[in-house]
Protein backbone atom coordinates (compact mmCIF):
# COMPACT_ATOMS: atom_id res chain seq x y z
CA UNK A 1 0.00 0.00 0.00
CA UNK A 2 1.56 3.27 -1.08
CA UNK A 3 1.63 6.26 1.18
CA UNK A 4 2.64 9.86 0.73
CA UNK A 5 4.81 11.80 3.13
CA UNK A 6 5.22 15.57 3.11
CA UNK A 7 7.94 17.21 5.19
CA UNK A 8 7.17 20.82 6.14
CA UNK A 9 10.04 22.82 7.59
CA UNK A 10 9.02 26.07 9.25
CA UNK A 11 10.63 28.90 11.13
CA UNK A 12 9.60 27.22 14.38
CA UNK A 13 9.78 23.53 13.73
CA UNK A 14 8.85 20.52 11.60
CA UNK A 15 5.47 19.17 10.64
CA UNK A 16 4.82 15.99 8.65
CA UNK A 17 1.84 15.50 6.36
CA UNK A 18 0.72 11.97 5.62
CA UNK A 19 -1.73 10.70 3.05
CA UNK A 20 -2.54 7.72 0.91
CA UNK A 21 -1.32 7.68 -2.67
CA UNK A 22 -4.31 9.76 -3.83
CA UNK A 23 -2.83 12.73 -1.90
CA UNK A 24 -6.17 14.51 -1.53
CA UNK A 25 -6.75 14.03 2.21
CA UNK A 26 -3.85 14.78 4.54
CA UNK A 27 -3.21 14.19 8.22
CA UNK A 28 -0.77 16.55 9.87
CA UNK A 29 1.66 15.47 12.61
CA UNK A 30 3.64 18.04 14.57
CA UNK A 31 5.35 19.97 15.71
CA UNK A 32 7.88 17.14 15.88
CA UNK A 33 9.42 17.39 19.38
CA UNK A 34 13.05 17.05 18.28
CA UNK A 35 12.81 20.24 16.23
CA UNK A 36 10.58 22.48 18.32
CA UNK A 37 11.55 26.15 18.08
CA UNK A 38 14.14 25.37 15.41
CA UNK A 39 14.29 27.07 12.05
CA UNK A 40 14.00 24.10 9.73
CA UNK A 41 15.49 25.44 6.50
CA UNK A 42 16.31 22.09 4.91
CA UNK A 43 14.44 18.84 4.64
CA UNK A 44 15.13 15.95 2.32
CA UNK A 45 13.76 12.57 1.32
CA UNK A 46 16.13 9.97 -0.10
CA UNK A 47 14.09 7.29 -1.83
CA UNK A 48 17.01 5.44 -3.41
CA UNK A 49 17.53 2.75 -0.81
CA UNK A 50 15.48 -0.16 0.47
CA UNK A 51 13.62 2.21 2.71
CA UNK A 52 13.32 5.97 2.50
CA UNK A 53 15.56 8.14 4.63
CA UNK A 54 14.28 11.51 5.81
CA UNK A 55 16.57 14.42 6.59
CA UNK A 56 16.02 17.54 8.65
CA UNK A 57 18.45 20.40 9.00
CA UNK A 58 17.35 22.62 11.84
CA UNK A 59 18.93 25.55 13.63
CA UNK A 60 18.19 26.51 17.21
CA UNK A 61 18.84 30.17 17.97
CA UNK A 62 20.43 28.98 21.19
CA UNK A 63 21.93 25.58 20.56
CA UNK A 64 23.04 25.87 16.96
CA UNK A 65 22.51 23.84 13.80
CA UNK A 66 22.22 20.08 13.41
CA UNK A 67 21.20 17.53 10.79
CA UNK A 68 19.10 14.55 11.79
CA UNK A 69 17.93 11.57 9.76
CA UNK A 70 15.10 9.11 10.17
CA UNK A 71 14.74 5.66 8.65
CA UNK A 72 11.22 5.08 9.98
CA UNK A 73 9.37 7.93 8.27
CA UNK A 74 9.84 10.31 11.15
CA UNK A 75 9.02 8.14 14.15
CA UNK A 76 12.59 8.42 15.48
CA UNK A 77 15.50 10.71 14.60
CA UNK A 78 19.25 10.27 14.90
CA UNK A 79 22.46 12.24 14.46
CA UNK A 80 26.07 11.15 14.75
CA UNK A 81 27.68 12.11 18.11
CA UNK A 82 30.07 14.64 16.59
CA UNK A 83 27.42 16.03 14.28
CA UNK A 84 26.86 15.67 10.56
CA UNK A 85 28.46 18.87 9.35
CA UNK A 86 31.25 20.92 10.86
CA UNK A 87 33.96 23.11 9.45
CA UNK A 88 37.43 21.68 9.99
CA UNK A 89 39.33 22.92 13.00
CA UNK A 90 41.22 26.09 12.18
CA UNK A 91 39.15 26.92 9.11
CA UNK A 92 37.96 30.13 10.72
CA UNK A 93 34.33 29.30 10.05
CA UNK A 94 31.53 27.61 11.89
CA UNK A 95 28.28 26.23 10.58
CA UNK A 96 25.38 28.63 10.92
CA UNK A 97 22.59 26.95 8.99
CA UNK A 98 21.92 24.09 6.60
CA UNK A 99 19.92 25.30 3.60
CA UNK A 100 19.77 22.22 1.42
CA UNK A 101 20.03 18.45 1.72
CA UNK A 102 20.02 16.80 -1.68
CA UNK A 103 20.45 13.13 -2.41
CA UNK A 104 22.51 12.41 -5.53
CA UNK A 105 20.99 10.48 -8.45
CA UNK A 106 20.39 6.75 -8.19
CA UNK A 107 23.70 5.89 -9.85
CA UNK A 108 25.61 7.30 -6.87
CA UNK A 109 24.35 5.31 -3.89
CA UNK A 110 25.22 6.81 -0.54
CA UNK A 111 26.06 10.23 -1.97
CA UNK A 112 24.15 13.12 -0.44
CA UNK A 113 25.00 16.80 -0.81
CA UNK A 114 24.35 19.64 1.60
CA UNK A 115 24.48 23.38 1.06
CA UNK A 116 25.12 25.67 4.00
CA UNK A 117 25.54 29.11 5.43
CA UNK A 118 28.26 30.31 5.26
CA UNK A 119 28.36 29.41 1.58
CA UNK A 120 29.79 25.92 1.37
CA UNK A 121 29.03 22.62 -0.29
CA UNK A 122 29.30 19.34 1.57
CA UNK A 123 29.36 15.77 0.31
CA UNK A 124 28.38 12.64 2.17
CA UNK A 125 29.24 9.16 1.00
CA UNK A 126 27.57 7.36 3.89
CA UNK A 127 23.98 8.15 3.04
CA UNK A 128 23.89 11.57 4.65
CA UNK A 129 25.10 10.70 8.14
CA UNK A 130 28.41 12.59 7.93
CA UNK A 131 29.49 15.17 5.39
CA UNK A 132 32.89 16.43 4.20
CA UNK A 133 33.57 19.97 3.08
CA UNK A 134 34.00 20.26 -0.70
CA UNK A 135 37.31 22.09 -0.61
CA UNK A 136 37.37 23.19 -4.21
CA UNK A 137 34.41 25.50 -3.75
CA UNK A 138 35.38 26.62 -0.24
CA UNK A 139 38.86 27.61 -1.42
CA UNK A 140 37.55 29.40 -4.52
CA UNK A 141 39.20 32.80 -4.94
CA UNK A 142 35.77 34.40 -5.41
CA UNK A 143 34.59 33.37 -1.94
CA UNK A 144 35.62 36.55 -0.18
CA UNK A 145 33.43 38.48 -2.65
CA UNK A 146 30.29 36.42 -2.16
CA UNK A 147 27.84 38.53 -0.23
CA UNK A 148 24.94 38.00 2.09
CA UNK A 149 21.41 38.63 0.92
CA UNK A 150 18.57 39.29 3.32
CA UNK A 151 18.45 35.61 4.22
CA UNK A 152 22.18 35.19 4.86
CA UNK A 153 25.08 34.05 2.72
CA UNK A 154 24.44 30.49 1.70
CA UNK A 155 24.65 27.73 -0.86
CA UNK A 156 20.92 27.08 -1.00
CA UNK A 157 20.61 24.83 -4.03
CA UNK A 158 22.54 21.76 -5.15
CA UNK A 159 21.77 20.25 -8.53
CA UNK A 160 23.79 17.12 -9.29
CA UNK A 161 24.04 16.10 -12.93
CA UNK A 162 21.68 13.16 -13.47
CA UNK A 163 24.27 10.79 -14.95
CA UNK A 164 27.76 12.30 -14.63
CA UNK A 165 28.91 12.05 -11.02
CA UNK A 166 31.68 14.60 -11.64
CA UNK A 167 29.26 17.36 -12.58
CA UNK A 168 27.36 19.39 -10.00
CA UNK A 169 25.84 22.86 -10.13
CA UNK A 170 25.16 24.96 -7.06
CA UNK A 171 23.41 28.27 -6.53
CA UNK A 172 24.20 30.73 -3.80
CA UNK A 173 22.88 34.08 -2.66
CA UNK A 174 24.72 36.08 -3.42
CA UNK A 175 27.32 34.71 -5.77
CA UNK A 176 25.16 33.06 -8.38
CA UNK A 177 25.55 29.72 -10.11
CA UNK A 178 28.80 27.77 -9.97
CA UNK A 179 29.51 24.43 -11.59
CA UNK A 180 32.13 21.73 -11.46
CA UNK A 181 32.96 19.10 -14.05
CA UNK A 182 35.71 17.34 -12.09
CA UNK A 183 33.95 16.10 -9.01
CA UNK A 184 34.25 19.33 -7.08
CA UNK A 185 37.97 20.02 -7.45
CA UNK A 186 37.48 23.16 -9.54
CA UNK A 187 34.48 25.43 -9.97
CA UNK A 188 33.57 28.10 -12.45
CA UNK A 189 30.84 30.72 -12.28
CA UNK A 190 27.98 30.10 -14.74
CA UNK A 191 25.94 33.29 -14.79
CA UNK A 192 26.25 34.68 -18.30
CA UNK A 193 22.97 36.39 -19.15
CA UNK A 194 21.68 36.58 -15.58
CA UNK A 195 21.12 40.13 -14.47
CA UNK A 196 22.26 41.61 -11.16
CA UNK A 197 20.39 44.88 -10.95
CA UNK A 198 22.05 45.79 -7.69
CA UNK A 199 25.52 46.20 -9.27
CA UNK A 200 26.84 49.02 -11.48
CA UNK A 201 27.65 46.33 -14.06
CA UNK A 202 24.35 44.44 -14.29
CA UNK A 203 25.93 41.42 -16.00
CA UNK A 204 28.93 40.51 -13.84
CA UNK A 205 30.77 37.21 -14.06
CA UNK A 206 29.48 36.32 -10.61
CA UNK A 207 27.72 37.96 -7.69
CA UNK A 208 24.16 37.37 -8.90
CA UNK A 209 21.40 36.63 -6.44
CA UNK A 210 20.00 33.42 -7.89
CA UNK A 211 17.11 32.38 -5.66
CA UNK A 212 16.59 28.84 -6.94
CA UNK A 213 17.86 26.45 -9.59
CA UNK A 214 16.03 23.45 -11.07
CA UNK A 215 16.47 20.83 -13.74
CA UNK A 216 15.05 17.61 -15.12
CA UNK A 217 17.04 14.38 -15.32
CA UNK A 218 15.86 13.61 -18.85
CA UNK A 219 17.32 16.87 -20.20
CA UNK A 220 20.59 17.21 -18.30
CA UNK A 221 21.87 20.31 -20.10
CA UNK A 222 18.76 22.35 -19.38
CA UNK A 223 18.43 24.33 -16.18
CA UNK A 224 15.92 26.84 -14.93
CA UNK A 225 16.68 29.70 -12.55
CA UNK A 226 14.50 32.05 -10.56
CA UNK A 227 16.66 35.06 -9.92
CA UNK A 228 16.32 38.15 -7.73
CA UNK A 229 14.39 39.67 -10.64
CA UNK A 230 14.63 37.46 -13.68
CA UNK A 231 13.46 33.99 -14.65
CA UNK A 232 15.89 32.17 -16.91
CA UNK A 233 16.55 28.98 -18.81
CA UNK A 234 19.86 27.57 -19.94
CA UNK A 235 20.00 24.88 -22.61
CA UNK A 236 23.73 24.31 -22.37
CA UNK A 237 24.40 23.36 -18.77
CA UNK A 238 24.49 26.93 -17.50
CA UNK A 239 26.88 28.48 -20.00
CA UNK A 240 24.29 30.92 -21.39
CA UNK A 241 21.05 31.97 -19.70
CA UNK A 242 18.06 33.48 -21.51
CA UNK A 243 15.01 35.13 -20.02
CA UNK A 244 11.75 33.18 -19.95
CA UNK A 245 9.92 35.83 -17.95
CA UNK A 246 7.99 37.51 -20.74
CA UNK A 247 4.79 35.60 -20.12
CA UNK A 248 4.83 36.14 -16.36
CA UNK A 249 3.17 39.00 -14.46
CA UNK A 250 6.50 39.61 -12.67
CA UNK A 251 10.02 38.27 -12.92
CA UNK A 252 10.53 38.40 -9.14
CA UNK A 253 10.04 35.38 -6.94
CA UNK A 254 11.88 32.70 -5.02
CA UNK A 255 11.10 29.08 -5.99
CA UNK A 256 11.23 27.30 -9.33
CA UNK A 257 10.57 23.59 -9.82
CA UNK A 258 10.24 21.22 -12.76
CA UNK A 259 7.54 18.60 -13.26
CA UNK A 260 8.95 15.14 -12.48
CA UNK A 261 7.85 13.57 -15.78
CA UNK A 262 7.53 16.52 -18.17
CA UNK A 263 10.84 18.34 -18.65
CA UNK A 264 9.04 21.23 -20.37
CA UNK A 265 6.71 21.89 -17.43
CA UNK A 266 7.93 24.44 -14.89
CA UNK A 267 6.37 26.15 -11.87
CA UNK A 268 7.09 29.53 -10.26
CA UNK A 269 5.38 31.81 -7.77
CA UNK A 270 5.62 35.46 -8.94
CA UNK A 271 5.81 38.33 -6.47
CA UNK A 272 5.31 41.93 -7.48
CA UNK A 273 8.88 43.11 -7.00
CA UNK A 274 11.93 43.16 -4.77
CA UNK A 275 10.46 46.23 -3.08
CA UNK A 276 6.96 44.75 -2.78
CA UNK A 277 7.11 41.09 -1.92
CA UNK A 278 3.50 40.10 -2.18
CA UNK A 279 1.95 37.88 -4.85
CA UNK A 280 1.03 39.62 -8.09
CA UNK A 281 -2.57 40.76 -7.90
CA UNK A 282 -2.52 39.91 -4.19
CA UNK A 283 -3.66 36.42 -5.16
CA UNK A 284 -2.00 33.15 -4.22
CA UNK A 285 -1.15 31.84 -7.67
CA UNK A 286 1.32 29.26 -8.88
CA UNK A 287 2.29 29.86 -12.50
CA UNK A 288 2.92 26.90 -14.76
CA UNK A 289 4.58 26.73 -18.14
CA UNK A 290 4.23 23.62 -20.30
CA UNK A 291 6.65 24.82 -22.97
CA UNK A 292 9.82 25.45 -20.96
CA UNK A 293 8.94 29.05 -20.25
CA UNK A 294 7.55 30.41 -23.53
CA UNK A 295 4.03 30.76 -22.14
CA UNK A 296 2.66 30.70 -18.61
CA UNK A 297 -0.74 30.13 -16.99
CA UNK A 298 -1.88 30.94 -13.47
CA UNK A 299 -3.13 28.02 -11.40
CA UNK A 300 -5.90 28.96 -9.02
CA UNK A 301 -8.30 26.10 -8.26
CA UNK A 302 -8.16 25.64 -4.51
CA UNK A 303 -5.67 28.46 -3.88
CA UNK A 304 -6.72 31.61 -1.95
CA UNK A 305 -8.05 34.52 -3.98
CA UNK A 306 -6.55 36.98 -1.51
CA UNK A 307 -3.01 36.61 -0.22
CA UNK A 308 -0.23 38.94 0.82
CA UNK A 309 2.53 36.46 1.55
CA UNK A 310 5.37 35.00 -0.51
CA UNK A 311 6.41 31.43 -1.11
CA UNK A 312 10.06 31.17 -0.11
CA UNK A 313 12.81 29.64 -2.25
CA UNK A 314 12.61 26.07 -0.98
CA UNK A 315 8.91 26.00 -0.17
CA UNK A 316 7.80 24.56 -3.50
CA UNK A 317 8.41 21.00 -4.58
CA UNK A 318 7.06 18.05 -6.50
CA UNK A 319 6.86 14.36 -5.77
CA UNK A 320 7.64 11.75 -8.42
CA UNK A 321 4.27 10.04 -8.53
CA UNK A 322 2.03 9.87 -11.57
CA UNK A 323 0.04 12.07 -11.80
CA UNK A 324 2.59 14.40 -10.32
CA UNK A 325 2.10 16.08 -6.98
CA UNK A 326 3.05 19.75 -6.53
CA UNK A 327 3.32 21.39 -3.12
CA UNK A 328 3.69 24.98 -1.94
CA UNK A 329 4.06 26.45 1.53
CA UNK A 330 3.52 30.11 2.32
CA UNK A 331 4.95 32.57 4.78
CA UNK A 332 1.66 32.66 6.64
CA UNK A 333 1.96 28.98 7.40
CA UNK A 334 -0.32 27.42 4.83
CA UNK A 335 0.57 24.41 2.73
CA UNK A 336 -1.27 23.48 -0.45
CA UNK A 337 -0.97 20.21 -2.33
CA UNK A 338 -1.96 19.34 -5.86
CA UNK A 339 -2.26 15.71 -6.92
CA UNK A 340 -2.86 16.62 -10.57
CA UNK A 341 0.25 18.59 -11.53
CA UNK A 342 -1.22 21.88 -10.37
CA UNK A 343 -4.71 21.80 -11.91
CA UNK A 344 -6.34 21.75 -8.47
CA UNK A 345 -5.12 22.19 -4.90
CA UNK A 346 -6.15 21.18 -1.39
CA UNK A 347 -5.09 22.81 1.85
CA UNK A 348 -2.83 20.54 3.90
CA UNK A 349 -2.04 22.98 6.72
CA UNK A 350 -2.83 26.47 7.92
CA UNK A 351 -1.57 28.76 10.68
CA UNK A 352 1.82 27.09 10.94
CA UNK A 353 4.89 29.30 11.38
CA UNK A 354 6.43 30.62 8.13
CA UNK A 355 6.99 27.70 5.80
CA UNK A 356 10.64 27.55 4.76
CA UNK A 357 10.88 24.25 2.92
CA UNK A 358 8.74 21.35 1.72
CA UNK A 359 9.61 17.95 0.27
CA UNK A 360 7.28 15.11 -0.64
CA UNK A 361 7.42 11.53 -1.80
CA UNK A 362 5.03 8.71 -2.50
CA UNK A 363 6.50 5.58 -1.01
CA UNK A 364 5.90 1.89 -1.51
Amino acid at each position, binding site marked *: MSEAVLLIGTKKGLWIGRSDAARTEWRLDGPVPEFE*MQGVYAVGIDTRGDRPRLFVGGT*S*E*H*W*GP*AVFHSDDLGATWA*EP*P*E*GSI*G*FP*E*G*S*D*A*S*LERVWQIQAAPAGQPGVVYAGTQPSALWKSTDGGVTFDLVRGLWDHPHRKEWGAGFGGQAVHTVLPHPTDADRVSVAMSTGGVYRTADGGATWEPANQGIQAKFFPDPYPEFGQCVHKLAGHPDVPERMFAQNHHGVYRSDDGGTIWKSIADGLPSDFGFPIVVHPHEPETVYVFPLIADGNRIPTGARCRVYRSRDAGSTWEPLSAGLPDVSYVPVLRDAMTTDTADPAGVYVGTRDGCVYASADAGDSWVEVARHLPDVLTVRAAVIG
Partner: protein
Amino acid sequence: MIAVRLPTVLRPFAGGAERVEVEGTTVAEAFAALEPPLRRRLTDEQGAVRRHVNIYLRDDNIRDLDGLDTPLTDGDELLILPSVAGG
Protein backbone atom coordinates in the same frame (compact mmCIF):
# COMPACT_ATOMS: atom_id res chain seq x y z
CA MET B 1 34.19 17.16 40.11
CA ILE B 2 32.47 19.98 38.31
CA ALA B 3 28.68 19.97 38.05
CA VAL B 4 27.01 21.26 34.92
CA ARG B 5 23.34 22.09 35.41
CA LEU B 6 21.21 21.93 32.30
CA PRO B 7 18.00 23.62 31.20
CA THR B 8 15.13 21.26 30.41
CA VAL B 9 15.60 21.54 26.67
CA LEU B 10 19.15 20.15 26.85
CA ARG B 11 18.44 17.22 29.14
CA PRO B 12 17.63 14.83 26.27
CA PHE B 13 21.31 15.19 25.33
CA ALA B 14 22.34 14.07 28.83
CA GLY B 15 20.16 11.01 29.11
CA GLY B 16 17.46 13.09 30.78
CA ALA B 17 19.71 14.27 33.62
CA GLU B 18 19.28 17.71 35.17
CA ARG B 19 22.98 17.84 35.94
CA VAL B 20 26.08 16.06 34.81
CA GLU B 21 29.44 15.82 36.54
CA VAL B 22 32.77 16.09 34.74
CA GLU B 23 36.42 16.67 35.55
CA GLY B 24 38.16 19.89 34.61
CA THR B 25 40.26 22.76 35.91
CA THR B 26 38.81 25.26 33.43
CA VAL B 27 35.44 25.67 31.74
CA ALA B 28 37.02 24.52 28.48
CA GLU B 29 38.31 21.34 30.10
CA ALA B 30 34.96 20.66 31.70
CA PHE B 31 33.19 21.13 28.38
CA ALA B 32 35.68 18.89 26.61
CA ALA B 33 34.62 16.14 29.00
CA LEU B 34 30.96 16.45 28.10
CA GLU B 35 29.36 13.98 25.72
CA PRO B 36 29.72 15.40 22.18
CA PRO B 37 25.99 15.85 21.43
CA LEU B 38 25.66 18.03 24.54
CA ARG B 39 28.96 19.83 24.04
CA ARG B 40 28.06 20.76 20.46
CA ARG B 41 25.00 22.61 21.69
CA LEU B 42 27.06 24.82 23.98
CA THR B 43 30.02 25.50 21.70
CA ASP B 44 30.48 25.53 17.92
CA GLU B 45 32.94 23.34 16.04
CA GLN B 46 35.72 25.89 16.60
CA GLY B 47 35.15 25.70 20.33
CA ALA B 48 33.51 29.10 20.79
CA VAL B 49 30.57 29.41 23.16
CA ARG B 50 27.38 29.88 21.12
CA ARG B 51 26.23 33.49 21.07
CA HIS B 52 22.92 33.00 22.85
CA VAL B 53 24.17 30.54 25.46
CA ASN B 54 25.00 31.93 28.88
CA ILE B 55 27.19 30.03 31.33
CA TYR B 56 27.22 31.09 34.94
CA LEU B 57 29.76 30.28 37.60
CA ARG B 58 27.98 31.26 40.78
CA ASP B 59 26.57 34.69 39.93
CA ASP B 60 28.98 35.53 37.14
CA ASN B 61 28.60 34.98 33.44
CA ILE B 62 31.87 33.43 32.33
CA ARG B 63 32.00 36.07 29.59
CA ASP B 64 32.66 38.53 32.40
CA LEU B 65 35.35 36.27 33.84
CA ASP B 66 37.93 34.59 31.64
CA GLY B 67 35.51 32.92 29.26
CA LEU B 68 36.38 29.33 28.54
CA ASP B 69 39.69 29.84 30.37
CA THR B 70 37.87 30.61 33.61
CA PRO B 71 39.48 28.41 36.28
CA LEU B 72 37.36 25.92 38.16
CA THR B 73 37.90 24.18 41.45
CA ASP B 74 36.49 20.93 42.71
CA GLY B 75 32.84 21.34 43.64
CA ASP B 76 32.15 24.26 41.31
CA GLU B 77 28.88 24.32 39.50
CA LEU B 78 28.25 25.72 36.02
CA LEU B 79 24.71 26.80 35.23
CA ILE B 80 23.70 26.79 31.57
CA LEU B 81 20.96 29.23 30.63
CA PRO B 82 19.61 30.23 27.23
CA SER B 83 19.61 33.97 26.73
CA VAL B 84 16.46 35.82 25.84
CA ALA B 85 16.54 35.75 22.06
CA GLY B 86 14.37 35.27 19.06
CA GLY B 87 10.75 36.07 18.50
